[in-house]
């Protein structure tokens, strides 16, 4: 199978992510399926950043440890990543800044010759890479025209000079696949939310959720949504609840620390039955932890956050296709059941870029919430068999809508009488049961790899890609609950049927999914855990599994 990996490295501020994105688009237009991993420390300038772009003939969602090309924009890229080199790795470097063996591009000289600004320097190196990989100039032109809308022609002149300086060392053969959208997980989540009727996105910046705030803010007019960045995460969640109580579908986005600030209001949403969608994109914790690195250690926190008992929906997409679909479904579920609905992501998914096969994305149905039938007087918390009370919003003519975070009666008036308190608690529980029943509509558990394999990898979220890639050659089964609340006990049991050994693969130190499955009577004997902020690589995971099986 054709496959290629490219490492692009430089100083923070050198535009490494965009250079990586251009390399990804070149390979996309050659027909490769892409995964881009972007690694950067938590600073603005000066640190070492790198992106690894991996292209394969079939879908990929993980990076290997070995690369075929290195594009070095700083000396560290050459010095620090030698363990990623193969004997024939091609090094393309900026001769102004880097001493290396390989093919040098005199970036300064090229920019001067074309009277081009410094910001176009990376185009010379990308041009050099294109030639080294034998990519036809026509494709370079096509990609620059689509993805560098400003100064395209000058960028192309600069790229051409880089292209002409280099000889082809590793021809990357074209594949007959058409190019597909390359999306980050956060972009897919945002577009999925919009397909699910999003009208307002409220967020306070926090890595790795911020890129969704930036993306939706940039596209707000086109997508017809309101984007607000208020004073704190506490304000974020409450503003979103204000939107919802006035009838507008709203979502918030944050990471663990910001979500800590939201928990009191999350409980309010549970009690007041305000529909709400939350993206929680995990990073390495506890506390500030590693702001720009990944982790899966907030599953049990998100599951239990907020005082009191109330139903919630949690989905953890593993691919951008799932993110597109499930983010829309999360919007619908929040509004159908009037519950908080979580999209649980992590740095790997949120900030990684993936080829997105739209043919795999099911259509998101137009979600219905149950509306008030105008029988007066309106009772916001009317008791019903499903526990779901018909919705009217503040401002709905003829209705007095009383939303309340205190224990309340059906009309929304504060009540402390034991029978009413119990009645309403049971009503909320019945909503949870209705939600659980509705889960039958969906494929809650993904089963892939060797579906009858005796050894099963049990994973969740972004580790989908690496587990599936590793499982192939080893003949393993991969079982992955996509919905985590309500917990899909029966579908999970079924997917694991006949597996003699279940190995939990998680990016946390305590195997939180395995713990949760155990609470539902599904035992998982073995665990392979990574908790250093870096995603599993196929090589590392293969080694660990082989050790376990030997």
């Amino acid at each position, binding site marked *: 199978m054709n496959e290629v990996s490219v490492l692009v490295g430089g100083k923070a501020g050198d535009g490494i992510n965009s250079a990586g994105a251009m390399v990804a688009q070149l390979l996309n237009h050659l027909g490769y399926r892409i995964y881009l991993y972007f690694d950067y420390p938590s600073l603005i300038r000066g640190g070492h950043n790198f992106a690894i772009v991996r292209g394969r003939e079939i879908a990929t969602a993980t990076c290997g440890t070995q690369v075929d090309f290195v594009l070095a924009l700083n000396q560290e890229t050459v010095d620090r990543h030698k363990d990623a080199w193969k004997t024939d790795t091609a090094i393309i470097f900026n001769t102004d800044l880097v001493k290396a063996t390989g093919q040098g591009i005199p970036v300064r000289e090229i920019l001067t010759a074309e009277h081009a600004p410094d910001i176009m320097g990376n185009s010379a190196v990308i041009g050099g890479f294109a030639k080294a990989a034998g990519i036809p100039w026509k494709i370079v032109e096509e990609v620059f025209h689509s993805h560098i809308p400003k100064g395209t022609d000058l960028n192309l002149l600069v790229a051409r000079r880089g292209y002409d300086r280099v000889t082809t060392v590793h021809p990357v053969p074209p594949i007959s696949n058409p190019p597909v959208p*390359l999306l980050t997980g956060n972009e897919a989540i945002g577009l999925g939310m919009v397909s699910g009727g999003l009208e307002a996105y409220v967020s306070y910046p926090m890595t790795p959720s911020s890129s969704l705030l930036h993306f939706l803010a940039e596209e707000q007019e086109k997508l017809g949504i309101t984007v607000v960045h208020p004073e704190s995460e506490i304000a974020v969640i409450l503003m979103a609840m204000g939107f919802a109580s006035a009838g507008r579908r709203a979502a918030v986005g944050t990471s663990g620390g910001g979500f800590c600030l939201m928990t009191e209001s999350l409980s309010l949403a549970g009690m007041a039955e305000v529909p709400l969608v939350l993206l929680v994109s995990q990073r390495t914790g506890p506390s500030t932890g590693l702001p720009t690195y990944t982790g899966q250690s907030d599953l049990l926190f998100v599951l239990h956050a907020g005082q009191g008992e109330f139903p919630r929906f949690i989905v953890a997409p593993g691919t951008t296709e799932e993110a597109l679909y499930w983010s829309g479904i999360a919007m619908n579920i929040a509004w159908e059941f009037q519950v908080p609905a979580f999209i649980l992501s992590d740095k790997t998914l949120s900030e990684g870029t993936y080829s997105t096969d739209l043919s795999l994305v099911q259509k998101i149905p137009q979600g219905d919430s149950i509306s008030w039938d105008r029988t007066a007087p309106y009772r916001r918390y009317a008791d019903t068999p499903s526990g779901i009370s018909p919705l009217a919003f503040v401002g709905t003519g003829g209705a007095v809508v009383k939303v309340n975070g205190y224990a309340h009666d059906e009309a929304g008036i504060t009540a402390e009488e034991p029978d009413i308190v119990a009645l309403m608690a049971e009503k909320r529980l019945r909503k949870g049961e209705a939600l659980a029943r509705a889960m039958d509509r969906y494929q809650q558990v993904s089963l892939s790899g060797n579906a009858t394999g005796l050894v099963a990898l049990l994973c969740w979220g972004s580790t989908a890609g690496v587990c599936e890639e590793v499982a192939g050659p080893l003949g393993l089964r991969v079982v992955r609950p996509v919905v985590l609340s309500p917990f899909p006990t029966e579908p999970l049991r079924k997917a694991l049927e006949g597996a003699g050994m279940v190995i939990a693969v998680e990016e946390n130190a305590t195997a939180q999914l395995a713990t949760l499955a155990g609470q539902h009577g599904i035992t998982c004997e073995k665990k392979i855990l990574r908790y250093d902020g870096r995603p599993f690589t196929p090589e590392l995971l293969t080694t660990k599994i082989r050790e376990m099986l030997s």
Partner: protein
Amino acid sequence: MTGRQLITDAQNTWCPGCGNFSLQHTLKNVLADIEKEGQSLDNIVLVSGIGCHAKIADYLNINSFYSIHGRTLPVATGIKFANPDLTVICCAGDGDCYAEGLDHLIFAAKRNIDLTVIVHNNRVYGLTTGQYTPTSPRGFKGKSTPLGTREDPFNPIELMLASGATYIARGYSKKMDPLRTLIRQGISHKGFAFIDVLQICATFFPAADYYSPRVYDLKGHDPASFEAACIKAREWDYNSDAPIALGTFYQRNSPVFDGKTAARTLSAVEREQAVREVLNKRT
């Protein structure tokens, strides 16, 4: 809905003599005035925090969002943003809005969002049975400070002047007619309207004997002058003995922050088209 009963059947649990009765009665009159002028009360939303003041959400028969301690303003901001045609009134407490939720108050003023905030400032925590708040006078002996507080109160009028509020007033729960006028002005004001209401707490801070001889109506004061407003605001610092001005300290017109600046909501078809366009840009 017209001609509605403005008070619900909920059992009232304020103490006898509580200043909240006056506030509720005043608001009820304001609502009746609004309805008489031909506006529907369906378009009015009351957002409360937590504390004695907040029970008003149960008692007034209008749309309400009974929120949590300190958090009236972000909820109200979301509602106003979502539907700029609504009139949104926050009833907040002094512990509620000057302590736990102070950041939201400052930011709402900074944004000049078109809301009216009425602070039921009784200068004590009532519902938690008598602790000092940010506006209790120095030396206040509450349950958490039996030896007396060792910090000065802050001056909410001055704070709001510094934060960019575009309507700033002070009322008194024992002067209901002027209070009614102030609340009407606050609601009519296009922008962030702040009304600090000195309110009697009959149980934990019965300060009527202090306030009544000291209060006077602001007359001949130019509310358009920020400098004059600052001087008047500093006359009484909520701590030392001084005359206490009631009325409008400051008012100016300034662009408001609301949903009218937001994008137009798309139909489902337009939405899918927009999503497609973004996907194409990524290919």
